[in-house]
């Protein structure tokens, strides 16, 4: 099945950056399904994944509508090529299965990533409630409740693991160090942010940095952890230039739709 090509406006790309971050984050979290550290947390992680997938679906449908070429959410999710995905690089990093190139695969990595991303998304949803794009504002209204819970879930775990045993604190510290180099991208503005801010579509990313940092520091403080030093490295997933892991995610995610076009449950 051949790929689709969007000709996305700045407006569509602004929506896709959020949509793809939710989608790929959901895909990674779904890797825990059947592998959670305990039954209850297995269910919790897959519930988080399903919330994010629901948010991604709503945003992708909205982006498809704005794009106006008659594509639907499934085509946007499964038939774009890698450079057309605009998710944060952080969410495509290995989560459960680590590799020689990318250690991870620790429950601590999952909790740290959830905390960083859920807080970032929740701040977006809050701001997007006032978007001049009524569709986006409506999606934000629904997503905000879910994101509040996601933040609480991640924060509660962060405190318990950070302020837990020497071993859990050591793992959380290592997970923070692995995730932190990808934080810069979360607040790096580009032309899309300028346009979104100017048109009342949504916040520029740099505008969320201070509130995000305050909330993260409060949680880390309660957990007896500290944020690692900021890194000058700037990842570029939200501009379509991805890490080596993205291709493998898409291969797994897209295989069925590519092999059996239009296949449905």
């Amino acid at each position, binding site marked *: 099945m051949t790929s689709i090509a969007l000709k996305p406006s700045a407006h569509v790309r602004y929506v896709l950056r959020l949509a793809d971050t939710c989608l790929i984050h959901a895909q990674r979290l779904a890797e825990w399904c059947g592998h959670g*550290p*305990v*039954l*209850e*947390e297995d*269910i*919790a992680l897959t*519930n988080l994944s399903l919330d994010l997938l629901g948010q991604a679906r709503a945003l992708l449908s909205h982006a498809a509508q704005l794009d106006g070429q008659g594509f639907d959410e499934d085509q946007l999710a499964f038939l774009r090529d890698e450079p057309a995905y605009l998710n944060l690089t952080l969410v495509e990093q290995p989560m459960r299965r680590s590799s020689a190139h990318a250690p991870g*695969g*620790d*429950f601590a990595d999952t909790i740290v990533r959830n905390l960083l991303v859920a807080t970032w998304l929740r701040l977006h949803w809050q701001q997007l409630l006032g978007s001049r794009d009524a569709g986006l504002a409506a999606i934000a209204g629904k997503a905000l409740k879910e994101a509040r819970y996601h933040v*609480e*879930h991640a924060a*509660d*775990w962060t405190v*318990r693991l950070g302020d837990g045993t020497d071993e859990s604190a050591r793992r959380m510290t290592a997970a923070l160090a692995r995730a932190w180099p990808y934080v810069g991208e979360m607040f790096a503005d580009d032309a899309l942010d300028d346009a979104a801010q100017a048109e009342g579509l949504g916040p520029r990313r740099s505008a969320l940095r201070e509130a995000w940092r305050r909330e993260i520091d409060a949680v880390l403080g309660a957990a007896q952890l500290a944020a690692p030093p900021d890194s000058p490295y700037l990842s570029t997933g939200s501009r379509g230039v991805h890490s080596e892991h993205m291709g493998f995610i898409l291969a797994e995610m897209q295989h069925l739709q590519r092999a059996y076009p239009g296949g449905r449950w």
Partner: protein
Amino acid sequence: MSENDKPRAEWPLWEVFVRARAGLDHKHCGSLHAPDAKMAIQLAREVYTRRQEGCSIWVVPSAQITASDPGDKDMLFDPMEDKVYRHPTFYELPEAVNHM
């Protein structure tokens, strides 16, 4: 076996009570393992209310529940078998109050 798969100490068990709607009572719906009370509420939300089963959750440490001994069942409950007069339907009411 990776480090993650090593057997570990079990979390304590919690009994979960869910209120389906405002005005109804909390009903026992099951139990789960959680490290503490707050996480027990969160995990109960995930496990027992994911299909809109509730609007309020209680959790109680299972260890705090004192239960009757199943071995005492005969002693505790069988003596009530022949005491039908403890049911209000046993009594015939006078005509004057029959519809009270």
